[in-house]
């Protein structure tokens, strides 16, 4: 598959006032200092792929998205998105992309979402029939028919966010940028939104960059992730591969019913350094050296169990692990 997005050594610096004295003269003379919001970021995304773009607050995710949507001009570096340089060919390029900023509304606050949709229809030069069919499809997919004629300021956050998605998808963009689209939504709303996004991606082969702090979003939508910290990419790869690589510490909690061989059981407990609390035992092991199934087989041989549970690390924990291992 051809690459939809190729980014090479993209860097964006912002000027911020250097801290120091705050007197009138001092403020006027004060030099600005430069901070690097993103630092030589390179990436490639295939057509139709969903990339999870994650990282701690201030990592540079939104800055990357603003660069790739042509809103910001970079300090250095190159980017090609479906054949365009975003900040140079804005008027032609932006016809083919859609963007949602969870933190900012794209809809006019005082009027109903449909009025904003109609404005976008004119901006994207859609004819009436195409627009009607598209709205019909999207309104159904995101279930917004009930409230799309109500002024935006009277909508709940979840309702508004679904309308934002519709506004971004109206013109059938080839690339969709989602910057925290599920922020503040409840569990069911999140689930619905993910399903709709997946459907669009599957049906229209939309390439998607998704930024989020919710690892469930990533787990359900993204096939590949990229982790950005302090402007630098610190991890890039398949979700499954990453789990294999980092999610090694497994845990088994079990409750023995009848021990067949007390002596062997004691050895087993010692070998895995299991902790006992009441009738429950907890043992922790590295899944790279011992497969969980082998541990369980051993356990079944030694005793009958009342119950047991195996814990693999959640994506949340894996990510936390990766963040934590970054040098400060």
């Amino acid at each position: 598959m051809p690459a939809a997005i190729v980014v090479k050594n993209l860097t964006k610096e912002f000027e911020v006032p250097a801290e120091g004295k705050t007197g009138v003269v001092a403020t006027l003379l004060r030099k600005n200092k430069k901070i690097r919001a993103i630092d030589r970021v390179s990436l490639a995304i295939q057509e139709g792929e969903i990339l999870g773009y994650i990282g701690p607050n201030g990592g540079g995710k939104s800055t990357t998205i603003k660069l790739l949507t042509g809103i910001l001009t970079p300090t250095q570096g190159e980017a090609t998105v479906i054949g365009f340089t975003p900040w140079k060919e804005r008027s032609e390029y932006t016809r083919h992309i859609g963007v949602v900023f969870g933190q900012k509304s794209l809809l006019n606050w005082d009027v109903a979402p449909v009025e904003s949709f109609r404005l976008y229809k004119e901006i994207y030069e859609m004819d009436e029939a195409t627009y009607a069919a598209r709205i019909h499809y999207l309104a159904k997919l995101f279930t917004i028919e009930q409230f799309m004629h109500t002024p935006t300021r009277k909508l709940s956050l979840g309702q508004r966010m679904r309308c934002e998605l519709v506004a971004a998808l109206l013109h059938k963009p080839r690339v969709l940028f989602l910057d925290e689209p599920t922020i503040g939504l409840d569990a069911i709303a999140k689930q619905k939104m993910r399903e709709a996004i997946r459907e669009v991606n599957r049906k229209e082969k939309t390439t998607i960059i998704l930024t989020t702090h919710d690892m469930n979003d990533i787990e359900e939508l993204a096939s590949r992730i990229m982790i950005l910290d302090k402007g630098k990419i610190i991890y890039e790869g398949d979700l499954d591969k990453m789990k294999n690589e980092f999610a090694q510490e497994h845990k088994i909690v079990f409750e023995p019913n009848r021990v067949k061989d007390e002596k062997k059981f004691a050895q087993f407990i010692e070998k895995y350094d299991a902790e006992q609390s009441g009738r429950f035992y907890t043992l922790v092991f590295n899944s790279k050296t011992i497969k969980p199934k082998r541990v369980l087989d051993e356990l079944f041989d030694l005793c009958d169990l009342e119950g047991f549970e195996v814990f693999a690390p959640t994506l949340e924990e894996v990510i936390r692990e990766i963040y934590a291992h970054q040098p400060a």
Partner: protein
Amino acid sequence: MPINLLKQWRVIAQSFRIQWLQIAEYKENFVFDVSSRVIGFLVFWFMWQSILGNTDIPGWDLPGLLVLAGFQNITMSMMLIFIYGVTKIRHMITSGELDNYLARPVVPWVPVVVQNGYFAFSGVLLGLALLVLAWSSFGLQINPFIALTILLLIIVGMGIAFCFALIVASLSFWLGKNDLFDDIFWGIYEFDQYPTTIFPGAIQLILAFTIPFMLLETLPAILLIGRAPEIVGVQWLGAGVLVLIVDAWIANQIWKRGVKKYEAFG
């Protein structure tokens, strides 16, 4: 290009619809709107009556001032409809809201300015009413040629004022949050109170490139009361078009540079 114009027109039409819907949400504003305009006119009227009772302003008498007041109301309302929204641009630059339109194939200020204008057509009506009143009480010099000249003068004049407003607003790309727009734009607007002919040449020159009250108000009034030959209107129109071209070029340059500098806060 023709298709592009058609598209711009449609974007503007839908933006107007949104402006109207926003105003309709807050209906009582319409009443305030009309009454504040009537009060404004009365203040203007009594002020001039007392000034004229004591001194002489070369060439201006009450019928002339009534016509001038008509054009002032029309200008003021058009400013509210088409230029007031520029203030919002300045706000969007500093708050980062401009992102929304920068990520779309549209000249960002077009929908912003129209959507955030103030639906002040009542002022246009009041202005026209004053002109009709002057016409029926004192009689005016009016023919299709003069009417067309006046219409074009006002369009060109509004164009110049718009470019100037956009230039001042664009400075926010560099200066961040500031009240420069209010200080400069509405500061210059204060000159609206008087016929421009009473000011020294330097001020008239500044007004010509910023808010050309000469084109918008004074000259149309002079033409209607028949104090200058029709050809004077055409000469001013030519000069106005030149100024408009210069202002539009400057506005475009500053805007383009500003967008490169844009920092998308928030």
